[in-house]
């Protein structure tokens, strides 16, 4: 069906636009809140790209974790903390802007060169199984140690956060 192809291409371009505009907004905006929301838009675009690549699970996790958790925590930080509403024009410019621009241009050309010169073999069949059952089994059997280590790190982070929060409250009372 030709219309599906049009829709797919349109969506792909749309997702790319989301990522690009979101990240430009995140870096260039003078209002902190706009920057965070730009980041959220960019994350949504990345989620769309995952969807385009055929992994519904990654798409949903991207939305759930990056948009739903990380962006919300960032916004929370902005609202609770004493942050300036607008950033000075001076701070946006930075000292090494020429260096940064040249470096990112070089990286851009290197990446696009490697994309253009790579030999893309057309895929005749689906390689591997990326369903949730497969992911879960691998996580718990094959990569069990890594999985457990990550959980320990997260546990340590949670305990640390609780201890920090307690200290703050006691200091306020005393």
């Amino acid at each position: 069906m030709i219309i599906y192809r049009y829709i797919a291409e349109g969506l792909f371009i749309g997702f790319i636009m989301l990522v690009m505009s979101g990240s430009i907004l995140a870096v260039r905006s003078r209002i902190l809140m706009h920057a965070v929301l730009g980041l959220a838009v960019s994350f949504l675009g990345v989620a769309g790209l995952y969807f385009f690549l055929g992994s519904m699970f990654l798409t949903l996790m991207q939305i759930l974790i990056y948009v739903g958790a990380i962006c919300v925590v960032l916004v929370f930080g902005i609202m609770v903390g004493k942050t300036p509403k607008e950033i000075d024009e001076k701070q946006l410019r930075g000292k090494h802007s020429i260096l940064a621009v040249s470096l990112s241009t070089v990286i851009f050309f290197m990446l696009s060169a490697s994309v253009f010169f790579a030999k893309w073999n057309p895929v005749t069949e689906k390689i591997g199984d990326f369903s949730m059952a497969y992911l879960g089994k691998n996580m718990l059997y094959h990569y069990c140690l890594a999985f457990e280590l990550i959980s320990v790190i997260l546990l340590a982070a949670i305990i640390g956060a609780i201890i920090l929060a307690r200290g703050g409250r006691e200091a306020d009372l005393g």
Partner: protein
Amino acid sequence: MEMFNFLPPELIRMIIFVALLIGLVFLNALVMVYLERKIAGHIQRRLGPMEVGPHGIFQTLIDGIKLIGKQLIIPRDVNRPLFRLAPLLAFTPVVLPFVVIPFSQKIQARDLNLGLVFIIAMSAINVLAIFVAGWSSNNKYSLFGAMRSVAQNIAFEIPILLSVLSVVLMTNTFSMQGIVTAQSNIWFIIVQPVAFLIYFIACIAETNRAPFDLPEAESELTAGFHTEYSGMGFGLFFLGEYGNMFVVCSIATVLFLGGWHGFTLPFNDYGAIIWFMFKVYFLLFLMIQIRWTYPRVRFDQLMNLAWKYLIPISLVNVLITAVIVKL
């Protein structure tokens, strides 16, 4: 029909479904507001709306038209783009979950493999919308409302996920249709009563309803995060809220009350929607009744309820379920 040949039937089906689902969101809000006012009236020994139509059944329709006709006032000091964006951002993620809700065996827009995760991911965007609304209004009531709302949502999302998880452990699938099919013999409310209770309590908090309606506590915060909104800006938040209630109640129906299962009706593949709607509206009725029965909790009580009671209980519940499933 020549001219429609370039449109594949699946696409047409999808468009029709989305149009119907948006219609359902609006209709549900109309019905729910009417029910809410009527039930509240009878609980308080009044009659509720009586003027427009027999027993006031057209009251909410008239109110809705009035709301659409009202001027959209944008205060001078708000952050204009975000202020305009927030209602849309709050409304869209409420419509999307309807896509995966199985109204009956055949009536479902799309049966995703990860339907349940899809709904939970969409509710994450909703939190962001409340934040944007509260912050962009540049008003302390809105800001406080938004902050309360997000603290509440983060806290109550955990028991929701854990109670959902204990059902998923039993069914081994995230597909909504699959979970319903797994309950053809026994409804999960009988096997998982604790998970159902936790889910229902946490959902009342998640939808910002009394007794957990701190984000919009009228007596403290005027109206919370949508204080500055007028006309349809407020209307979209309102629609979103009632749509959200419908979504959480239909998840509860799918997970615990057997979805569209019931006595076989004529044309059961489609007719079972009556069972589904009946169960959903029964849960919604319970929610309304709870709202008009219990007083609002304090914020520390709310947080204690989530972190000290619901989360530990649901963790133990998941553990027990996992052990029993594996035995």
